[in-house]
C-alpha cells in the first residue's frame, strides 16, 4: 500500500489522539472521584475548624476516616469493575496505596517531633504535605494535571498563610474555600473529562 505525506500525517495524528485519550483514562479514571471526595472533606472540615473550632477535632477524625474508607472503597470498586486488566497496573495501585499509607505514618511522626504547633500550622503542614505528594505523583507518573494541581493549591495555601500575618483568623476559611474547592473542582473536571 502506498501512503502520501498527508495521509501519513493524519494517521499519526489519529495515533496520538487515541494514545492520549487512553493514557488519560488510565491515569485519571479513579483520580476524579477521589479528588471530589477529599475536596468535600477539606471544605467541610476546614469550614468547621473556622466556624466551630470546639468540634473541629471530631470533625477531622470523622472526615479523614470517611475519606480513607471512601478512597479504599473506590479503589476496590475500580479493581472489581476494571475494564483493562494488567498485572503491572495492579502492582502500581498497591505501590500507591503503600505510598499514601506510609506518608501519613511519617506525617504523624513528624507532628509528634514538632509538637507544640498551632492549629494553623497543622492545617498548612497537612495541606502542603498532601500537595507535595501530588507533585511527586505528577512527576513520577507523568500526570501533568496532578503536578499542576499540587503546585497551584500549594501556592494558594502559601499565599493564605502569608496573608494571615496581616489578616489573622481566616486561614482555615481560606484553606477550605481555596484548597478544598480546587480539589473538588479538579475532581469534577476529571470525572467529566475521563468518564
Amino acid at each position, binding site marked *: 500500500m502506498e501512503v502520501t505525506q498527508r495521509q501519513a500525517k493524519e494517521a499519526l495524528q489519529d495515533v496520538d489522539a487515541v494514545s492520549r485519550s487512553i493514557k488519560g483514562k488510565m491515569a485519571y479514571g479513579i483520580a476524579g472521584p477521589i479528588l471530589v471526595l477529599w475536596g468535600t472533606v477539606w471544605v467541610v472540615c476546614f469550614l468547621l475548624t473556622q466556624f466551630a473550632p470546639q468540634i473541629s477535632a471530631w470533625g477531622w477524625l470523622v472526615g479523614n476516616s470517611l475519606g480513607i474508607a471512601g478512597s479504599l472503597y473506590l479503589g476496590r470498586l475500580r479493581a472489581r469493575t476494571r475494564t483493562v*486488566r494488567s498485572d*503491572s497496573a495492579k502492582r502500581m495501585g498497591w505501590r500507591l496505596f503503600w505510598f499514601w499509607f506510609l506518608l501519613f505514618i511519617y506525617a504523624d511522626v513528624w507532628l509528634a517531633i514538632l509538637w507544640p504547633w498551632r492549629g494553623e500550622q497543622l492545617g498548612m503542614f497537612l495541606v502542603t504535605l498532601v500537595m507535595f505528594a501530588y507533585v511527586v505523583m505528577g512527576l513520577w507518573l507523568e500526570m501533568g494535571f496532578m503536578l499542576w494541581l499540587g503546585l497551584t493549591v500549594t501556592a494558594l495555601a502559601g499565599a493564605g498563610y502569608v496573608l494571615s500575618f496581616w489578616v489573622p483568623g481566616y486561614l482555615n476559611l481560606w484553606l477550605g474555600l481555596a484548597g478544598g474547592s480546587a480539589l473538588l473542582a479538579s475532581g469534577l473536571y476529571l470525572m467529566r473529562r475521563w468518564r
Partner: protein
Amino acid sequence: MSDINDIIHQPIRLKVMAALFAMESDAEADFTFLRDHLKLTDGNLGAHLEKLESAGYLSVRKVFIRRKPKTFVRLSRAGRRAFEDYVEALRLIIGDTHGFGEEQPGSGK
C-alpha cells in the same frame, strides 16, 4: 509515497492498535471498553479484531466473570513490533527523523 502495513493502515484497526499499544505491555482490554472508548459498534469492532487476530497482532480471550461472558483483547509481541514499525514508516514518510523509541505517540500529557 511509500509502502506501509495495510492491515494496520485502516482507520478503525489503527485506532484499536493505538489504544492497545498505549496501555501497559501486559494489559488486556475488555471488548466493551474498546467499543465505547473508540465509539464503535459490536459488529464493526468484532470484524476488525478478527482481522488483526488472524494477522497475529493480538489475542482474544473469552471468559466468564460472575456468569457473564467477557471478551478481553491483548496486543501480541508481533503486534507491538508491527505497530512500532508502522509508526516508524509513517514518520519516515513525513520526514520526521526521530526514532519511534525516542518519542512515542502521546508521550506528552
